[in-house]
């Protein structure tokens, strides 16, 4: 390797050896073909960002959209006491959390499926470190798309949220917990109308990867009002959680 160049030094008053010259250059040529490591670059070799292509160090992928939540001026919507639908809640692009304890990718519940509403991207990466962030608004809804009444809201056990890599949940990214045995409020962060962020840093091998934000109803109390803590998800099809405005950001750190 060319830690010292040239390998064969020509000296004063010595005859020139062209084989030695050839060997000096051949070795450097060979080195430029593959396997250049950190020792081949001097400290501060690239001092100006203008010398770096935009995708040389970081690639950013993201989806996102805004969805009106129905809150009106200085007063929660007319239907918030259960008397009618909210004003201005979106007809499309929201996501209803499935009434089950299985994980589901946040996609488009109603309307034309589109990337902006899908918290999932399939990307081709190098051997990189991925920083994946999901930021979203969670809401409660009933059958008339109204906010869920207090009596029912407290029976909802909350949701778990997590990042998945190639359809496998990364449990280190999940909020809440997995053990409900000692947790009287269930395994979720049981917050109803609340914004959440989950994120994770994870290395991946070169290839095609699908990154997603997934959500599930958590195990929790069937009815916390009566103190009956049955470890099953607590949800009726008429009362559910909904994902509204959201953003999904992936930073590929090369």
């Amino acid at each position, binding site marked *: 390797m060319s830690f010292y160049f040239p390998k064969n030094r020509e000296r004063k008053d010595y005859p*020139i050896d*062209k084989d030695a*010259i*050839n060997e000096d*250059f*051949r070795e450097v*040529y*060979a080195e*430029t073909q*593959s*396997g*250049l*490591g*950190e020792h*081949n*670059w001097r400290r501060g*070799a*690239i*001092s*100006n*960002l203008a010398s*770096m*292509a*935009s995708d040389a*160090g*970081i*690639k*950013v*992928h*993201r*989806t*996102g*959209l*805004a969805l*009106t*939540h129905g*809150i009106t*001026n*200085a007063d*929660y919507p007319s239907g*918030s*006491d259960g008397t009618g639908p909210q004003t201005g809640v979106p007809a499309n692009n929201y996501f209803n959390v499935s009434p089950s304890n299985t994980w589901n990718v946040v996609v488009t519940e109603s309307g034309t499926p589109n990337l*902006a509403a899908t918290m999932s991207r399939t*990307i081709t990466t190098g051997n990189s470190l991925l920083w994946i962030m*999901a930021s979203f608004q969670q809401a409660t809804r009933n059958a008339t798309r109204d906010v869920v009444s*207090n009596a029912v*809201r407290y029976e909802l056990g909350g949701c778990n949220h997590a990042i998945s890599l190639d359809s496998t949940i990364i449990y280190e990214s999940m909020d809440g917990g997995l053990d409900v045995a000692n947790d009287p409020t269930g395994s979720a962060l049981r*917050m*109803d*109308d*609340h*914004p959440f*962020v989950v994120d994770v840093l994870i290395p991946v091998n070169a290839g095609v990867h699908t990154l997603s934000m997934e959500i599930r109803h958590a195990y929790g109390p069937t009815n*916390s*009002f009566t*103190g009956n803590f049955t470890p099953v998800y607590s949800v009726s099809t008429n009362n559910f959680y909904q994902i509204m*405005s959201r*953003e999904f*950001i992936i*930073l590929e750190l090369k």
Partner: protein
Amino acid sequence: MADKFSPISTGDEATSTKVNSLFSSLQTEVNALPITAIQPGSLHDVHLPSLVVDSGTDSITGTHNYTNQYPGWGNSGIVIGANATGWSIINTGGTAGSGTDLEVDLGADYVLTGSNSGLLIMFNTNVVALDDTTTATGTSSLYGLFKIQVYANGAWRSIQRTERYTTAEMQYGPGISGTLASAQASLSKDVPIRTFISNADLATPGHVVRKVRVLTCISRKLAAAGSTQLSLKETNLSVMLIHASLQESL
């Protein structure tokens, strides 16, 4: 072995012209290195400049309270003072705006094109109370709202998809029997927002960006005007302008 490598052949003279030719072709080779010639991870912080073009953080410690009322979706009107309709800028002095705004000023104007892919913004605040201060009876029909603004071409622009809200809660559960309407719960909730602001988020592509701040207010029901208050404590805002390529679906 490089295609261009032409050694000094047997019988040829080792002249300076020959050696210079070897150096020239070697220079060409180095300047046209294929990406596969470089081992992954070879270039790192020792060799490269920071990929964060610019950054800033700001934070507020201690309690700051807000009483202004939500002006509606898509409305970014700001009011200074208490119990009015409009947003408040998060400020060390709360609704009165008498202190210092929570704001990151990058100190220079940036166009979010080319390798200046955009601003990664991270905001967190600790909601410690959201209640009707005139009654001991709790209500969950109070909402604290937040959204992020960027300063682009001399005007503040709301990023609507960052509008978030959290609800008040009542103490309720085992050991608290009787009616639902018990005392207001102490919240201690973390409200987080993450967003990536690109050229597509601006009113006109090519506008320069410089600053970021966060707004907040309350939506109320069943509570009288002037009786509701949102109390925040530790609040943090971080902004990074990243040298990167961007693929987005908005």
